[in-house]
């Protein structure tokens, strides 16, 4: 059961500007619909969790916003312009399991990849980019590991490297796919502190999140998703039994206890 005391009372720092606007988004895998007619507005400056049961389309939503998946209908705009024109405003932290961690590369190298987007084709990262990458490593507390091969890092450390890579992009909006999955408690705290810092700096952060219990503590905004959008808004207003039941079905209490 979620008690009301846990609810984060910080008022969202939202400025009233809409950072991400999703219109009538429908996505299908093999012509099976996974997301249905999603309308969603994410205000600037919120730290938002996307929650929903397995297979609800949480990752799919992020991936289609980022153009990795092609929706069959609908459109996405970032600060009122189509996503394609606003790419540099967006950073992405994929699921940790989506890459080959045995790849021959170092932590610093991976973080440097965050600068590739602004560099564009062919141009190589130079001293300036390297400095930025080192700063990002510092911020996530991974500087001592910069020359480690990525397979020699723990799960939590790998996740921090991914976060550092996104930080280097110096974006306005951050999308993260289950950043807390399989990480140790210290890393979880470190990551959430960085996310809160980002919010303080006026950035918008969207996180696919699994652990319902920590939602009120970590986030100020939440979207309930299960193929359709169930609800979206401030945690203190809409994070309640009613919406949880609508999203998870009658058994939602079981999934909280897990």
């Amino acid at each position: 059961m979620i008690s009301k005391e846990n609810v984060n009372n910080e008022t969202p720092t939202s400025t009233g500007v809409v950072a991400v606007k999703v219109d009538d988004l429908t996505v299908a895998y093999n012509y099976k619909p996974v997301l249905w007619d999603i309308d969603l507005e994410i205000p600037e400056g919120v730290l938002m969790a996307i929650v929903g049961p397995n297979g609800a389309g949480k990752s799919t939503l992020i991936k289609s916003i980022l153009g990795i998946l092609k929706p069959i209908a609908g459109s996405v705009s970032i600060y009122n312009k189509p996503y394609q024109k606003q790419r540099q405003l967006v950073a992405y932290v994929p699921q940790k399991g989506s890459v080959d961690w045995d790849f021959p590369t170092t932590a610093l190298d991976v973080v440097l990849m965050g600068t590739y987007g602004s560099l564009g084709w062919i141009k190589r990262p130079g001293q300036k980019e390297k400095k930025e990458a080192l700063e990002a490593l510092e911020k996530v507390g991974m500087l001592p590991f910069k020359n480690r091969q990525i397979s020699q890092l723990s799960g939590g450390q790998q996740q921090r490297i991914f976060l550092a890579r996104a930080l280097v992009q110096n974006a306005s909006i951050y999308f993260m796919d289950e950043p807390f999955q399989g990480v140790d408690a210290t890393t979880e705290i470190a990551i959430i502190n960085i996310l809160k810092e980002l919010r303080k700096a006026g950035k918008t952060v969207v996180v696919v999140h699994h652990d319902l219990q920590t939602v009120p503590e970590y986030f100020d905004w939440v979207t309930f998703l299960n193929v359709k959008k169930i609800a979206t808004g401030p945690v203190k207003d809409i994070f309640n039994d009613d919406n949880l039941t609508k999203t998870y079905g009658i058994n939602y209490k079981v999934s909280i206890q897990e």
Partner: protein
Amino acid sequence: MDVTEYIKLVFTDYTLRTITLGTAILGAVTGMLGSFAVLRKQSLLGDAISHAALPGIAIAFLLTGAKNSNILLLGALISGLIGTFWIRGIVKKTHLKSDTALGLILSLFFGFGMLLLTFIQKQPNANQAGLDKYLFGQAATLLESDVWMMAIVTGICLSVLLLFWKEFKILLFDADYTKTLGFHTKFIDILITSFIVLAIVLGLQTVGVVLMSAMLLAPAAAARQWTNSLSMMVLLAAIFGAFSGVFGTAISASQNNLSTGPVIVIVASVFVLVSFIFSPTRGLLFKQIRFIKNRRDLQLHKTLAFMYNIVESHENISHPHAIKILNNFQGYTKSTLQKLVRKNYVTIDGNMWSFTEEGFKAATNLYNQQINNNE
């Protein structure tokens, strides 16, 4: 023929020089591009492509009647690419899995190629001699012009590689992320695949259809064991590949009846074997040694911890205790005790042992560490 004599011959003899140079260049370029194939988990694609190239060679010959290897290789390139894209089509459009698609294209194209080759051999006007070499490769048939061709293609590969290094690297590591950065991933993907096909086709005359895939994989697999950096891996793979070519040529040139292809493959496989066993970080030998050492350390720590528990209750830490009481404890062996004596952690007097100042300190540290770890 001894080694110095052979080396002299390489520099003086035109044919041998051409062949050595050719196989070296070939080894380098396949090693280089093979690294990408291995990291993309497309190791067996090379095998399928090289087999799929065979009908292209035969059709090019049937159409032009030319023995010019460049035209034949163009045919090989086209049919290799058709094979590659058909494999993709099968995986994408049907429920057949990639291994089935690879095996299908490989064997069907090869069989069709063999049909054409045997058909050509029965033609009365055919100056067909030499098409057989594409099965197992015959480096002896390399001409200077072929080597030039290889050098040019290698040069192009190298410059494309250097130019798009950043893009190749990020696509290989994290394709989805690459897309979000605004790179055209399909273009990079097709670029890499096309160059891999090109490298395979280039090697058909020297190594042959059947064994070409090993040239792609072996140097890269060996190189991976020695380094954790992509650039180093590509460089090492190129070096291993070149050496496999040179050594393989030398061995097959000094023996009768040996096709170059199989010998080069054996040399490359030796590189792999040595790398698997002796690589300092990943190698099986050192892994085993580390494993044994860790186990010993663990035993040592266990003994120390046990001793600490006994000594703790005494006021005088150097109070002697009977060795016997250590016996019913599994971490203890005579050799671990000897080791502790050598480290000056304990002293032994008859069948009694006692901690030294140093030993007690080490044991205390260890004990505290364990407590912390348990928390």
